[in-house]
């Protein structure tokens, strides 16, 4: 096993073990710490009652409600959202052969938000649990198709065109979102909730939200795994990939759908949590190399602990007030994005 930064590769299984340890640690802190101080043994008792088989003493209903209905789903949803966004980002960076591509940068998240806002403001989300995620996935795939159509020529996606198309699409969709919310402003409470949701976070998310995310996550991950190897070959250009046996159109379509499903499902639950899909896959690629059979699962796990950790920060950094999760990830991610821009300065002008 080789473990080092930059020149050598970290061992995959070491990396996954460390990531799992971090995820469990952050999740543990998230369960045991919060605005209401609880005794550690009570928390353990609640977890045992819900997770272990057999008979248990009835727990204090107040503690039970805080731990099992507030803190636990929040941690789980944060991990799912982070995993989905990071996986979608890893796929998009491979698909566009471009380390700056990600759901946030090229407008996929905003597109997903537009879909979800549409479903919410027109009252479609009330009747059917998966309405918001489905509309979000539709918004995500539409915005992805638009960006691909604009920025890709003959199988190549120049960095500048991709980023500019993303900027324009983000601006346009943000305006659409504002307009949709403004036109429902008479129902003040609903509009306020939607605006709040869009800023990105996992506050007050319950098991129902985990349930909303789960189908998309499973489908998205399955497609991602099935087409992981095709992404390796697509990195080498469409001509080479085709000559080595990749069905280019099918692979690209599958990866686009997978990224859109993952992004849409995550955004429908958490709003726009930026930069996860940009930073995480990039760092994982630095450590583990570009082979997607390792990169994709590692990105998913890293995204999970990253967002659970970021949510911990969001809860505690200005306690008792909460900071938006999207604010925390932006604080980490935006400087990183600028760093990438500087590092890739020479390549930004190059189109192939």
């Amino acid at each position, binding site marked *: 096993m080789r473990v080092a930064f930059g020149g050598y590769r970290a061992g995959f299984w070491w990396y996954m073990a460390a990531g799992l340890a971090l995820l469990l640690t952050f999740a543990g802190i998230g369960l045991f710490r919060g605005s209401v101080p609880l005794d550690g043994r009570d928390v353990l008792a609640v977890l045992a009652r819900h997770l272990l088989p057999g008979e248990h003493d009835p727990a204090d209903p107040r503690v039970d409600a805080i731990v099992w209905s507030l803190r636990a789903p929040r941690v789980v949803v944060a991990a799912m959202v982070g995993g989905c966004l990071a996986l979608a980002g890893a796929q998009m960076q491979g698909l566009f052969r471009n380390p700056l591509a990600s759901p946030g940068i090229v407008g996929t998240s905003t597109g997903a938000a537009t879909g979800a806002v549409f479903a919410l403001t027109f009252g479609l989300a009330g009747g059917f649990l998966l309405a918001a995620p489905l509309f979000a996935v539709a918004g995500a795939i539409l915005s992805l198709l638009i960006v691909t159509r604009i920025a890709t020529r003959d199988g190549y996606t120049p960095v500048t065109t991709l980023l500019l198309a993303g900027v324009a699409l983000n601006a346009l969709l943000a305006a659409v979102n504002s307009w949709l919310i403004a036109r429902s402003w008479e129902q003040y409470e609903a509009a306020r909730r939607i605006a709040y949701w869009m800023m990105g976070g996992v506050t007050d998310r319950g098991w129902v939200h985990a349930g909303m995310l789960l189908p998309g996550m499973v489908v998205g991950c399955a497609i991602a795994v099935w087409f992981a*190897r095709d992404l390796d070959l697509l990195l*080498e*250009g469409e001509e*080479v990939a085709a000559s080595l046996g990749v*069905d280019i159109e099918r692979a690209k379509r599958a990866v686009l759908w997978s990224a859109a499903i993952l992004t849409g499902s995550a955004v429908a639950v958490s709003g726009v949590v930026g930069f996860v899909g940009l930073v995480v896959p990039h760092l994982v690629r630095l450590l583990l190399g570009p082979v997607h059979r390792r990169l994709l699962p590692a990105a998913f796990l890293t995204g999970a602990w990253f967002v659970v950790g970021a949510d911990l920060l969001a809860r505690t950094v200005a306690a008792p007030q909460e900071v938006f999760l999207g604010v925390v990830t932006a604080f980490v991610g935006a400087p990183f994005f600028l760093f990438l821009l500087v590092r890739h300065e020479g390549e930004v002008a190059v189109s192939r």
Partner: protein
Amino acid sequence: MTAASAVTVAPRLELVGGGVERRGRWLLRGVDLVIEPATLISVVGPNGAGKSTLLRLLSGAWRLTEGRALLGGFDLAALPRRQAARRVAYVPQTVRPTFEFTVREFVTLGRYPHESRLFGTRSADREWIDRCLEDTDVLALAERRVTTLSGGELQRVLMARCLATEAEVLLLDEPTSNLDLAHGLDLLGLARNLACEGRSVVLVLHDLNAAARFADRVAVLDAGALVAEGPPAEVLSPDLLRRVFRVLAVPLAGSAAPVFDFEPLP
């Protein structure tokens, strides 16, 4: 260097009235070309004649606008990509890789048409990769990043990836352009051996003398058309070289293959 495989007989690859149009311009048109099994055929022509385009068409990476490409009698476009890739391998002109695969990972990409989707490479695959690395003299570089290789090293790694596919028809676009003299000759020798073992090899070469010396047949392209095809001694005449390449070719005596000294036209 030794050739890396058991004896195989390649399928016939042919282009019937092949033509391709991109953005309103015909890059190649009306090309009839047969690549017989166990033949080393060299494609020559001035810049922009359509040599790379011809290789892309033969590999199936590009669709024909008119005409047909046939592999063993079957329409190449109708064949599933994976199946075609097991029989025809294509090495494009060297492009600097931007993603940091190790040499071994990079060469393993060539196993794609043989891999299982879920389980990836098996140990038999890995042994085969080792042999391909050895045959192209890059085994020592196996753990290096492809982004750090010199042009010559990269070209040999690309050749290794091409061998990794186990394809019977190899299409190589200017495989010697970045190689020093010794490695260039090694590679041409390897191509020669592969052809002797029953594979078909199509080489785009700029060095006409090397083409004449190593190839069984030469195909001459000019302005998107095939102007001549046949054994080097018949095809490469001073007259044709003057017409197509606009050079004065002076034959040198004392060699079985035609060898020329080139001078600019007066």
